[in-house]
């Protein structure tokens, strides 16, 4: 019953978005601007209809209505309530429904916030979002329909994929990823809108879309970090990144979005890179769709690829349509969009931004080629290959190390041009940070050139970014006699975009530090222990206490309890790595236990045990500074939030601010929580 209601809501939504998208150009061309109410009405109606369908799905899941095909596929009466609710995004059809809902939400928010803006930019942007929504509505009506009737109605279902019901981060990572991924349709919509409304030659649309990109970028950054954390906590290998295609799929649009956030500043300040920035918008969106195709079409085998079916062809067709449409739009208008500005001197901030964009694009292309190569090789030459981690590490890591260095150079250099003497004066002091951190790394035993360089550059860039704060605070302190905390608060408050950016830099540096340290100084050992026996790894000792088992409604748990011993042999804590056996799968889900401190993690995983409990095989991994990766991720998000609450540059003419951003803060803040 509820399935029929929701299915009909989705069919009406398909009709609504198609109508709304088609009516927009007709209304504008024929001068009937009052018809644009139909466009906006379609956006709101679509949000209402998809909300009805999504809420219906949650209700069906919670009430175990197995007459709905999706519930029959992923539901189970024994699954705890939280994991029942989040199985909404635990398989293909539900995740497409959730995607459509997030898109409907973004479209409604865009129209709600910007509908008073004069001109044709917002109507065309709404049209673009409706067109994207139409694609997902087609998927939901056809190949990804989650509301098919099931007959006869089963009494119970298998429950969600076991890997996805084993950890609470599954309630966090997917929604953040969707908010990030789907949000990147908004800058694309503004880019298309700008071209169609002949506003691409002004900077207004870029300022509008910048804020949406920043919000989406913040969500995507948080999602990537949460995904790494999930992988670390659940997969049991003690790592967080393996250049797996699905990880790469989330990383690719992040790289172009990061490039966009930097190039749009050059566009605003120097009137340069306009065409390039526009292309970054398009590339980011296409990469999100490509990522969805890779992870949802079943073309790759992984925890993200749910089923094989025809859905992949729909995605390929959509990618082709988007590429052709945007190419025609951009190429047909490129001479109007092209920039008038000039490069400043060689030693200037825009030079650094150019290099930043160059390296980010290079990393993106490297990861893209490495990710797609196996697919192409299999299709063209019929050989099965995989591109190993060494490729990504050798090709992408040097560029990323260079980016860390640039993070220290960019903020120190002024816009326009400067003298070499001035540049030297600004660039030399942070070298202390490089020397200190590089020396610490060498003393600690780092021998790889890139690892030592990464440490040194993290030190350099951290000093450079902190120095920007110090200089600003000192100026306020001297000029206004403000106390240091007040000076810091007012400094950030006075230019939130700039200092939000520096906060994000600090976060990225913390992540880089954690990754470099934990991959350089990782130690691991595996051993089979009898109760009472100890295993020592890099100064950390664990002693097996016992092996135990426990029945829970949806799973059987086998665990080992180990005491963690201090230097003097006293017990300073316990760890309980487990293996969770879910009813539906013959593969247990490893559940390592991690003991964290600011210095690093003691990671203990149960890898085997005697079925009578006589012994247990455990893998103990000592990884320095891992928690700094998660903490750094939070700092990045904080930086994005500070940047979002920016109210327009203070020096800018008030009129442009009024046009560009009619008080979007409250609504955006709402989507953040």
């Amino acid at each position, binding site marked *: 019953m509820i399935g029929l209601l929701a299915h009909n809501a989705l069919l009406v939504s398909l009709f609504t978005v198609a109508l709304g998208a088609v009516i927009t150009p007709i209304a504008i061309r024929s001068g009937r601007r009052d018809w644009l109410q139909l466009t906006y009405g379609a956006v709101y109606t679509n949000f209402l209809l998809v909300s009805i369908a999504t809420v219906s799905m949650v209700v069906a899941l919670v009430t175990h209505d197995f007459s709905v095909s999706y519930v029959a596929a992923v539901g189970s009466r024994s699954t705890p309530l939280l994991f029942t609710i989040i199985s909404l995004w635990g398989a293909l059809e539900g995740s497409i429904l959730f995607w459509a809902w997030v898109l409907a939400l973004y479209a409604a928010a865009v129209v709600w916030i910007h509908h008073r803006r004069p001109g044709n930019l917002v109507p065309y942007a709404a049209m673009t979002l409706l067109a994207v929504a139409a694609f997902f509505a087609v998927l939901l009506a056809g190949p990804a329909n989650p509301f098919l009737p099931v007959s006869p109605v089963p009494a119970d279902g298998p429950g969600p994929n076991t890997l996805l019901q084993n950890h609470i981060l599954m309630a966090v990572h997917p929604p953040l990823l969707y908010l990030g991924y789907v949000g990147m349709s908004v800058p694309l919509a503004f880019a298309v809108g700008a071209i169609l409304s002949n506003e691409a030659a002004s900077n207004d649309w870029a300022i509008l879309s910048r804020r949406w990109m920043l919000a989406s970028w913040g969500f995507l950054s948080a999602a990537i970090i949460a995904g790494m954390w999930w992988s670390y906590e659940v997969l049991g290998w003690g790592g967080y990144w393996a250049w797996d295609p699905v990880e790469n799929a989330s990383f690719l649009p992040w790289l172009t979005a990061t490039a966009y956030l930097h190039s749009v500043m050059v566009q605003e300040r120097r009137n340069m890179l306009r065409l390039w920035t526009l292309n970054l918008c398009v590339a980011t969106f296409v990469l999100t769709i490509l990522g969805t195709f890779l992870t949802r079409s079943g073309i790759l*085998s992984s925890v993200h690829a749910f089923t094989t079916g025809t859905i992949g062809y729909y995605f390929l067709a959509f990618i082709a349509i988007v590429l052709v449409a945007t190419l025609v739009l951009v190429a047909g208008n490129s001479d109007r969009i092209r920039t008038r500005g000039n490069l400043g001197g060689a030693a200037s901030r825009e030079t650094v931004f150019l290099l930043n964009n160059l390296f980010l694009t290079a990393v993106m292309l490297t990861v893209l080629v490495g990710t797609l190569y196996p697919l192409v090789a299999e299709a063209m030459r019929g050989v099965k*290959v*995989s591109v190993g981690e060494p490729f990504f590490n050798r090709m992408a890591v040097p560029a990323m190390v260079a980016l860390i260095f640039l993070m220290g150079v960019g903020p120190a250099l002024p816009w326009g041009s400067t003298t070499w003497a001035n540049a030297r004066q600004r660039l030399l002091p942070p070298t202390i940070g490089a020397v200190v951190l590089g020396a610490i790394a060498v003393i600690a035993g780092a021998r790889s050139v890139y690892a030592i360089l990464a440490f040194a550059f993290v030190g350099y860039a951290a000093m450079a970014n902190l120095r920007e704060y110090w200089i600003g605070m000192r100026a306020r302190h001297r000029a206004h006699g403000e106390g240091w905390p007040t000076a810091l608060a007012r400094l950030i408050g006075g230019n939130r975009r700039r200092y939000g950016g520096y906060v994000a830099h600090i976060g990225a540096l913390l992540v880089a530090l954690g990754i470099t340290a934990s991959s350089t100084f990782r130690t691991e050992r595996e051993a*089979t222990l009898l109760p009472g026996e100890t295993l020592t790894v890099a100064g950390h000792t664990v002693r097996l206490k016992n092996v135990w088992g426990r029945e829970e409604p949806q799973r059987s748990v086998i665990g080992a309890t180990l005491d963690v011993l201090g230097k003097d042999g006293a017990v300073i804590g316990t760890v309980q790595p487990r293996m969770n056996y879910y009813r539906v799968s*013959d593969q247990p889900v490893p559940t390592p236990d991690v003991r964290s401190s600011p210095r690093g993690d003691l990671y203990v995983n149960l890898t085997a045990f*005697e079925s009578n409990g006589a012994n247990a095989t455990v893998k103990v991994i000592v990884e320095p500074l891992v928690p700094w990766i998660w903490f750094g991720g939070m700092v990045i998000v904080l930086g994005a939030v500070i940047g979002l609450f920016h109210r327009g540059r203070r020096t800018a003419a008030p009129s442009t601010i009024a046009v560009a951003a009619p008080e979007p803060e409250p609504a955006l803040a709402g989507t953040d929580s």
Partner: protein
Amino acid sequence: MKRAWVVGGAGVIVLVFGWLLFGGLEKNVVFFLTPKELLAKGSAGVGVPVRLGGQVKPGSVKWDAKTLDLRFTVTDGAREMSVRSAGAPPQMFRDGMGVIVEGRVGSGGVFEATSLMVKHSNEYRAPKPGEEAHEKYKTLIERSTP
């Protein structure tokens, strides 16, 4: 003039980058082979990183819990290859199941594995009666407390 320099420089960078990229690809591609395909390569297959795919030959799994030395044979029906690995086998590492082993063939003709993946389709397979954890580990679960 300045513009020409910028465009020329960008062109050179793109060319060098492309050359590095595809050179790097050629060197780091790992082939996915069955024992038959790997053995057909002869000495060219020795010492090269490979992903070996096939089934675990029934009765071939030997694991020493004390030394963590794991040995088994991977077969594709036609040919077979002995594999050596260090560490515990994945749980439910049973006869006849599909595996992907990453590593390289050592000089003795034994495949030295660096990682071991159990190949399971995404449509997960429910345990058969008697294989369920609460049956298999009944004594452990009933006797012990966490």
